[in-house]
Structure formats: structure tokens, C-alpha cells
């Protein structure tokens, strides 16, 4: 199943499932919830971290965490 870690720059997706045991509450609070849309805006040099637009919030997370967020690609 696709995760944010596997997205290409510019790709869009919809968050389907978040591994709640491994994702800190803070990330949920910033809008990283099932049903919200996500766009990969930019990948930092050396391929990590990832700069995302989640539900209108712009934030950057590391790949390890991004791999815990499952998405449906659009």
C-alpha cells in the first residue's frame, strides 16, 4: 500500500490510514488525519525530510514517519 514516503514530488493523495500507535498526537493536530488531502511539495536534498501540504497546512516531516501514513494516490 502506498505511503507518503513513496510519493513523487508534486503528487497528490488522500490520507487513508494513520498508524496511530506510531504517529504522535502533534501530527494529528496539524491535520494529518484520514480523509484529508496531501501534496508532496518538495523533497529536501539527500531525499529527506519531506515538505508537505496537508489539508492546507504546510509542514515538513522525516521519511520514517511519512512511511507510517498510508494514502490513496490521486
Amino acid at each position, binding site marked *: 500500500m502506498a505511503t507518503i514516503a513513496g510519493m513523487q514530488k508534486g503528487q497528490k493523495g488522500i490520507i487513508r490510514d494513520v498508524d496511530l500507535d506510531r504517529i504522535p498526537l*502533534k501530527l494529528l493536530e496539524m491535520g494529518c488525519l484520514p480523509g484529508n488531502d496531501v501534496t508532496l511539495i518538495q523533497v529536501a*536534498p539527500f531525499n529527506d*525530510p519531506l515538505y508537505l501540504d496537508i489539508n492546507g497546512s504546510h509542514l515538513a516531516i522525516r521519511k520514517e514517519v511519512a512511511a507510517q501514513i498510508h494514502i490513496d494516490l490521486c
Partner: protein
Amino acid sequence: MAQQIQVALLGNPNTGKTSVFNRLTGLNQKVGNYPGITVEKKEGICQLSRGKKAHILDLPGTYSLNASSIDENQVIELLLNKNDKDYPDVAVVVCEVENIKRNLLLFTQIKDLKIPAILAINMADRMTRKAISIDVPALEKALHTKIVLLSARNNEGFDTLKTQIEQYKNLPMTPCLDTTVIAPDYFKRLARTYPGQDLYKLWLVITQDVNFGKLDRTGVSGPISFQTESVGTLKKLQQKETIKRYQFINDTLKATLTVDKARATDFRSRLDRVLTHGVWGYVIFFAILTLIFQAIFDWSSYPMDFIDQSFALMSEWTKANLPPGDFTSLLAEGVLPGLGGIVIFIPQIAFLFLFIAILEETGYMSRVVFLMDRIMRRFGLSGKSVVPLISGTACAIPAIMATRNIENWKERLITILVTPFTTCSARLPVYLIIISLIIPQQRVLGIFSLQGLTLTFLYFLGFASAILAAFLLDRFLKVPSRSFFVIEMPNYKLPMAKNVLITMVEKTKSFVYGAGKIIFAISIILWVLASYGPGDFNRAPQIIDAQYIGQSLTEQERNTAIEAFRLEHSYIGRVGKAIEPLVSPLGYDWKIGIAIVSSFAAREVFVGTLATIYSVGNDDEQTIRNRMAAEVHPMLGTPRFNFASGVSLLLFYAFAMQCMSTLAVVRKETNSWIWPMGQLFFMTTLAYVVAFITYQFLS
């Protein structure tokens, strides 16, 4: 006096909350600390109509009421404690027009605590450009609140906000959501166990234990224990609550907020493409750093020369116009040169704070974090360590406090331990004066001043040693921690002059006052110790006359010899002589030794100390720099500050841990004496060894 309305200013980070605070209070504000902890407390007074006043408390920025750092915890402590003297009559929740959705999470939580709340939507001036429209009456109704559209930049909407604050009693107290629906059985049980308590408040108190640790329970009576459910279950429930809140917010905004996505053309994405680019991103970052350090050296030399000369003139004037005596010489030889040693660096320090404030305000700092994270991780640091390392160039104390948003404890600890290596503004005085003594005033390639480049090199050295130390610590420290990292990438903003200036003035002021107090005290002590002495000190004229018997000295030569003899046999001279064997392998004499010892309290004392020591008994009007340049090695007859001893001194200051306030902050932030003591021992040893090798090699 009329009762003041207590207002708490709340909101997510990056919503321009501070600009709103500055607009409401003007310069009528003060910055302090919450008792016992190093969280900044900003408060101010806002004038309402007919002489009424509001007391505004600017609370730390937070994404929700589920705290994960001590800054955020402060917000919850206050909102749960009705007996606190700062408990708000009304909360003003500041949110940003482009991020309303996320900002509302906090707002609904505050509403559910039944605190009267006003929703202040800031940056409303961007609405047309970003094609955002809000159905304000409908949103007000859905959220049971009053909404004020603000533009801190254009100073719009503040009269309305003030009116709403004045009429806070009309605000509805209706909560936004019913939290109990996430686990009806659990909340029923809670209600039975603690009858008469507000369930949402109770829930926050309980979950706070899970998130952050013991809370001050004065707001809720009776014994509270969260044993009723396991920690895991409570965490699940919190996630459920967050999801529930977002459902409510999404539904509400669907009907009241429209954004024309096509019109939201992105200036930010174009800028991001360049600023976070694999090559250009780094080039721009290093260009900005170089520019800053060049500017600090070049631009501030004019006001500095002026200040230096003014203090020399003041000393001169004092001596000429006040009746001679101990008080006059204390003033002219102790206090004035000592204070001059700190005042002279105000231009540089102000410039440094100015640049850091601009980097923060524009939103550029987050891009640097993003750019540097992968690289910093190789050294056991986080991309977020870049902010402390850069602001450490101003002062290590706020820098160490700025590590609080690093989620991973090991990364945070390493950042705290290595931050004191960065070139803080207290090292600047020492660097500047020594560079100007030992590095010629030349230009390289026509544009760069050689002195400026040396300074840039020292800054670079500070960063490099911090990174290297981090790398070693990463290898040897065994601290269990989870890797996690999230950073908001805020919109680019033109910095607002008012915000930047207030930050600059506040920070410079507290630096100068803080250092000024220490320097004032130390310069008085030094003057006393240098002006009096035991035994031979009091017989100086006789001893000198006996020494130079048969030689004809002019009156001036005789006086100079007497003063030199006195200084050497004063109390401070004796202490200095005692430590001289320790510092002479590094190329220093006893006077520099004294300056180093006194600067263990704070580095910037160094220049003031030398100024005081050199000016005791010295009648000429001279600037600090000239006095130092005139110091001669007693045996060799060459300048005291030559290339070898100068470089050795520079490196000593680059590495040594000479700041008691930093040690105290490290103690507070790590909650242990082991870390600060380790820092003190390790850094000072390193400094000594490096200075020793350098001097032996160069001389």
C-alpha cells in the same frame, strides 16, 4: 483604580500573535519569566475607551491544549487554574487567515473550557489576494463567538477588537463540542466519581498527566487519578477527540469558508523552489551568513569608535573636574572604563539580534531547518538544532531554551551541550579587540576586510567545533529516545519593522543590563584590589628611588615606574602573579590571567577588566584599544599582544566555557548537574590545551 480586564492572547505559532500583542500594547509591555521556570512571560497594558484598561498576557504559541513542552504546559496550567491571578476574563485566540482550519482546533478546546473567547483572524489583508472569503456571521453562530478580522500589518481591526474585549461579558459561553461522545461510558464513570466537576476540564487534567506530567491541581478539587483507564486507552481517546474536533471544524468551514484554489497563486512555492534547492538553497544560506558577519564587523565600527572615544573623554572629564580622591579615581579608573567595555559592543549586538529577528520573522528559518535536517542528523543533531546554533551567535541562553521544540530527547540534549561552542555576542568584544590588535587592516580581493574574514573564520570555527562535538557525543551517549520530527513551514512574510525593532531593543537591553550589572560589580572590586596592596605596595616611592639610585629620572618616568610597581604589588597583582605560571605557557601575563579569571563569570568582562587594570594610575586620555596596544612585554620589549599570544587568546575564548548563566540554564533544561559540569570541565580543558599548543607552535 478601575479593575483591569484580564486578557489572555492565545494561538498557534506563526499566526502573528506577537504582532497583535505589539499593536495592542505598543511599547507598554514587559518581558519576564514565569517563577521557577525559564519560560518567557510577556505582558502589557492596553488602553480601552473611557480610561478603562486591559492587562494582556501573551501566552506561548501552542497547537492545542495537549502540551508536550514546558512552554505549552504553561498555557494549560493557567487555563485550568481559576485561582491564578492571570486567569483570563476573556481569551483572544489569534489565527491566521490561510490556516483557519488548523487554528480552530485550539479555539474549540478553549471554548469547551467555557472561557469567553474572541476569534481574531489575523492577516485579513491577504484575503483578496488569496481569494478567501468568510461568511463571518455564519461562522460566529457556528462557533458561538465574536469574530474580529485583523491586519496587524496595516493596523486594521484593532478598535473593533478592543470594543469586543470591553464587552466580553456579552460573549456566549456555549461550548463547541461535546467531548463525552468519544467514550460515553468512560465519561459517565468520571461524572459519578467526581460529581459536580466540569467533565472537559477533568479530562484535560487527566490527559495532561499522560502527556506531560503532574499538573498543579489547584483548579480541580478532590483526589484525581487516571488509573481508571490505561495510558494506552487514554492516548487513543485523545486521538479520537482530535479527529472529532476536525470533523466539526471541517463541517463548519465547509459552509462558511471558500477558497478559490486557482487564484491562490503561489509566490511561496516559487520562492521555496529556490530557497530549498539542493544547490542554491545552500549557496543562499551561506551567502546570508557571510553577509551578516561582514555587516557586523564593518557597519558597526563607526558607532563603536564614537562610543570608545566618548568614554575616554568622560573619564578624562571626571578626573579634571571632580575633586581628586578615592571616589573620583574609582569612577574614572574603575567604573567608567568597565562600563565602556560593554557599552561599546551595543552596536554589534544590536545588529546581530536584528538579523536573527529578521530571519525568524520572514519564515526563512524554517527553510533552513528543512534544508539542514538530513545533514545535521549525521552528527546526532536535528534540523531544528540549526535555530539554536544560529541564535547561539547572539546568546547561548535563549538558544538553549529554543531547543525545547526538538522532539527527540537525544538530539535535544546534544544540541544543548554543543550550543555554547557557537560564537556568542559575549565573545565578540574579546574577538574584536584582539583582532584589531593583531590582524592588519587590509582588504582581500578588494571587498573583504581581512579583519572581517578572521571574524568569519572564528564564527565558522564555533559552528565546526559544535558539530564535531555533537558527532562525538552521538557516538558515546546512550540515551533511549524516539525519532520524531515535524516542523511547520510558515508563509513568507515581509518582516514588520515594529516587531523586529521591539525584539532587537528588548534583547539588547536585557543583554546590556545583565552584563552591565556583573561588569559594574567586578570593575569596582578590581579597582579596589588594584588600588590597594599589602607590604611593599605602600612604600613604592622609596623602593623605586632606591632602585634607580644614581640614575636621573624625569618626574614622569618616576611616576610611571611607581605606578607599575604599585600595580604589581597590589592585591590583584599578587593574585595575578600567583596564577601567572598557569597562563604563561599560553603566552599571557598576569594581567591577562586576571582578566581570564574574572571572565569565568561572563566572557564580556574580559575587556572591561583589562580596561580597568590598565587605566589604574594611568592619567592619559586613551581608548581601550590603544591601552592594550601600548602594553609591552617587560623582558622582550615587544607588544604584549603579538600574533602568537593573540591567536592563543582567540582560541582560548573560542572553546572555553565561561558563562555561569549558561551553566545555570543547562542545569534547568536537563534537570541534572552532570551535563553542565561536564561542559565546564571538557570545554575549559580543551581551551587550555588548544591555546597551549597554538602559542608554543607560533612563538
